[in-house]
């Protein structure tokens, strides 16, 4: 039977609400929750499709929360335990949240991931590491973005009940999809009846086991697709929670999103490679970032995205002997702040190696630039990525050499990082170097003291163009190409696009096929439409409205890469087929539908043209 069960507090340990794992993220709960859960999903990528993570606020009827009564009871027990005002206030909020008719739940669900792989009762499994582990990680990849296994606590920071339920589907060794769900909660140590309870409890099957039968959980906790859902129960919903999470996601994951490694959906709004620009430039998000003093992070994300995406940026491979390769993206342009930022796994980390005495703040003698440094994306980047992971602090904002305990390994890492920074500086000095010459004109004074007119350099060509500037016209819409033989304003180009005026007549002899249909004038066709009949690439249903009456010859061309290619017709539902074309009688303004069979299958776009039929000896049908 499912239920909540707290650990027994045999030692009478006094446990308050301020659990270190949660407190780490209290200062910026939305920002931390978005980053840490996004990172965990990114690390669990399965297959080649981008990881998709959605953040949704659910309003669950209390009756559909199977542990609501038990949790309410436990909170009441906690309120009876000795506590300070802050704890009492928190517990009262929690009691209100679980007693309300509906319970707010933030669901963070991912797909295209491996899920929390089991077996669920195996202490070495990913499921056990996430649900029951403290300070451990079971990520399969040594280069994964997460390092400490404490990022999972960020979800608790947004739960007023300090209760998180995990549900997952994963493939076992036999590739069967398995379901598992379990909850973890942390209140304060308390006494329930005659039982001394620890602060830490679990919701699940008996004996602290996970629930593995999906029918035993309510619909909102069930899932069938491989992946993981994290439910922060009693979500602490504050103003603009979705926008604040969006801000955190785009400022941390912009590179992974751009590279289609991950995409998000927050409160129904997608954040993917298509929408990334729009989200980063969104005025409301900019105002929010300004309000929460995160405008620098947002502007930084815009700059770094430009740097990794720009074709004007240069890319440099940096090989560090004994370690591997890094990639430096360097964009030299005005109004950039001379900065180097480090990404790992497409996630923003920091802008310095200060703990290596390499703050990377000063770059004298260089033009303005922005640079992005990251382990290379190929196999040679794996060891650099693993090293950076070892050096990264839990807040993911600094690299600290003392995190490597082994002295020799630490010294090696110091040397490698310093060599890396030296190489980064060398590249920047070379590429962004301020031009040196023995003399230079002071162009900044030219507006005041111009050497103009009669005093200009001898031999100067007045038609000379400025090599350092461009001018653009405003984009203007081109003239639409008209149907063959159409009259009216505009230039009807011949196929092949020479831009010459078309006379509206045809000689009847194709240059490509040398077919002759008699000298005839083109008949404009309106509303041309075509489909593959029953999906068959050999038969094309064609519709059109002729602008003239009489007997016409219809030709179908394949719209090619640069030019059109004639398609030979072998059969038609109306008219007569001759030399790959259809001759038929039409009436001006009357819609025509005709099925034609091609000599070879073709499923692409076509060009349809018609000429008035004039019988010649060569064209006589016997």
């Amino acid at each position: 039977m499912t239920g909540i069960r707290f650990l027994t507090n045999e030692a009478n340990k006094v446990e308050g609400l301020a659990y270190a794992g949660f407190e780490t993220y209290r200062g910026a709960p939305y920002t931390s929750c978005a980053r840490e859960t996004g990172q965990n999903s990114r690390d669990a990528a399965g297959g080649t499709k981008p990881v998709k993570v959605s953040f949704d606020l659910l309003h669950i009827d209390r009756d559909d929360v199977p542990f609501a009564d038990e949790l309410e009871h436990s909170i009441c027990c906690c309120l009876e335990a000795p506590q300070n005002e802050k704890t009492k206030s928190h517990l009262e909020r929690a009691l209100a949240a679980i007693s309300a008719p509906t319970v707010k739940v933030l669901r963070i669900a991912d797909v295209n991931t491996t899920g929390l792989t089991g077996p669920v009762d195996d202490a070495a499994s990913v499921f056990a590491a996430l649900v029951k582990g403290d300070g451990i990680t079971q990520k399969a990849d040594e280069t994964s973005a997460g390092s400490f296994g404490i990022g999972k606590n960020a979800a608790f920071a947004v739960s007023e009940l300090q209760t998180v339920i995990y549900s997952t589907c994963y493939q076992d060794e036999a590739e069967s999809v398995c379901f598992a769900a379990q909850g973890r909660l942390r209140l304060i140590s308390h006494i329930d009846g005659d039982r001394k309870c620890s602060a830490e409890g679990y919701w699940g099957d008996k004996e602290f086991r996970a629930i593995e039968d999906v029918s035993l959980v309510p619909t909102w906790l069930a899932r069938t697709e491989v992946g993981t859902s994290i439910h922060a129960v009693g979500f602490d919903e504050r103003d603009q929670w979705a926008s604040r999470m969006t801000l955190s996601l785009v400022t941390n994951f912009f590179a992974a999103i751009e590279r289609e490694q991950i995409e998000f959906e927050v409160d129904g709004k997608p954040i993917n490679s298509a929408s990334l620009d729009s989200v980063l430039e969104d005025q409301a998000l900019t105002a929010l970032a300004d309000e929460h003093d995160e405008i620098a992070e947002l502007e930084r994300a815009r700059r770094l995205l430009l740097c990794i995406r720009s074709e004007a940026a240069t890319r440099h491979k940096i090989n560090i002997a004994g370690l591997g390769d890094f990639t430096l993206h360097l964009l030299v342009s005005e109004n950039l702040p001379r900065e180097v930022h480090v990404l790992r796994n497409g996630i923003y980390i920091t802008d310095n190696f200060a703990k290596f005495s390499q703050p990377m703040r000063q770059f004298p003698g260089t033009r303005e630039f922005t640079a992005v440094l990251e382990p290379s994306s190929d196999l040679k980047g794996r060891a650099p990525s693993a090293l950076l992971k070892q050096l990264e602090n839990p807040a993911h904002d600094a690299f600290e050499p003392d995190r490597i305990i082994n002295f020799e390994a630490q010294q090696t890492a110091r040397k490698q990082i310093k060599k890396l920074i030296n190489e980064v500086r060398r590249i920047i000095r070379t590429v962004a170097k301020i031009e040196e010459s023995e003399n230079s004109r002071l162009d900044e004074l030219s507006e005041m003291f111009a050497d103009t007119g009669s005093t200009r350099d001898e031999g100067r060509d007045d038609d000379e163009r400025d090599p350092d500037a461009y001018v653009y016209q405003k984009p203007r819409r081109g003239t639409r190409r008209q149907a063959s033989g159409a009259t009216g304003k505009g230039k009807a180009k011949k196929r092949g696009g020479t831009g010459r005026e078309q006379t509206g007549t045809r000689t009847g002899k194709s240059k490509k096929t040398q077919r002759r249909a008699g000298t005839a004038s083109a008949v404009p066709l309106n509303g041309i439409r075509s489909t593959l009949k029953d999906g068959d690439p050999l038969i094309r249903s064609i519709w059109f409205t002729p602008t003239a009456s009489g007997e016409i010859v219809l030709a179908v061309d394949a719209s090619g890469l640069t030019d059109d290619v004639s398609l030979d017709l072998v059969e038609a539902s109306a008219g007569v087929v001759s030399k790959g074309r259809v001759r038929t009688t039409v009436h001006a303004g009357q819609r025509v539908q005709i099925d034609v069979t091609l000599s070879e299958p073709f499923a692409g776009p076509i060009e349809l043209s018609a000429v008035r039929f004039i019988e010649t000896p060569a064209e006589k049908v016997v």
Partner: protein
Amino acid sequence: MKISETTSYPHPVLAPWSTDVAGSSFTAELTLREEGAAQQIDIHSKVLLDQLELIDLIENGDAAFGCFITCVSTGFRRMQRFGFPTGSHQFAPGALLGRVQLRPMIWALRPISTWLPAGAHSEFGGGTDIEPGQILALDDEQRVDVLRPPLPSIESIFEIFSSTELGEGEFDIDMTGDRINIIMGEATYSLVQGLRQTTESTRSVITNAMFVPVVMEILSQIASGEEQFSSCRWFEPFRKRSELLDVDLKTPSLFTDAQLLLERPFNSLSRLIDEEETCDE
């Protein structure tokens, strides 16, 4: 890729000239902009699309918006994807020059089963299966001429030189040539060049620290006998500017007139500092 308004696709294509999909529109506003002195060219796009199924396809990653860009002068020819509904892309310097043609379009990224958007013409029947790469919407081709402007006719009458004969931190002025040459030691020269090319603030600092005393010295030397410089090319532009600003070259007020001729450079410096402080607040 040849894309034309007369082409008939075997599935509904939303386009301003087509009746394949009624009641919806697709328009892309494109702007070109040069960023900074390094001549990067940015193309910015803003899409106006009200066909909900197409919007869903793009937002879900099943379709993409972009432009087929061709530039005959540089041989540039590419389908460039852009963000939706707004996006931008920065091209390498010189990639686009002369006539640039941009054809906005939406195309499928993944197979779409029985594509039949709302408003599709009845002649399309029950819909068509779409393969990746097939065009779903087109807008009119847009053309931009990217040109080099005529070289500005203004050039400075001042030039700085490095010299091994001058001590560091010392300046000398040579007014006997076509331009006024400001000469300084090699390290000083590098410092001046660095400050000139660093930021607007440091450029402004240089104007105050170096150009003001230089112009004072020029005024002083002209006042001592302007005929000695009348054959120099720099003299006429300098005289004209002085005349324009009512600076009497025969009896100048060196400190005041130098600031006047340089448009009170301290103002620009203090303005920049104010702007930075405002940004910091």
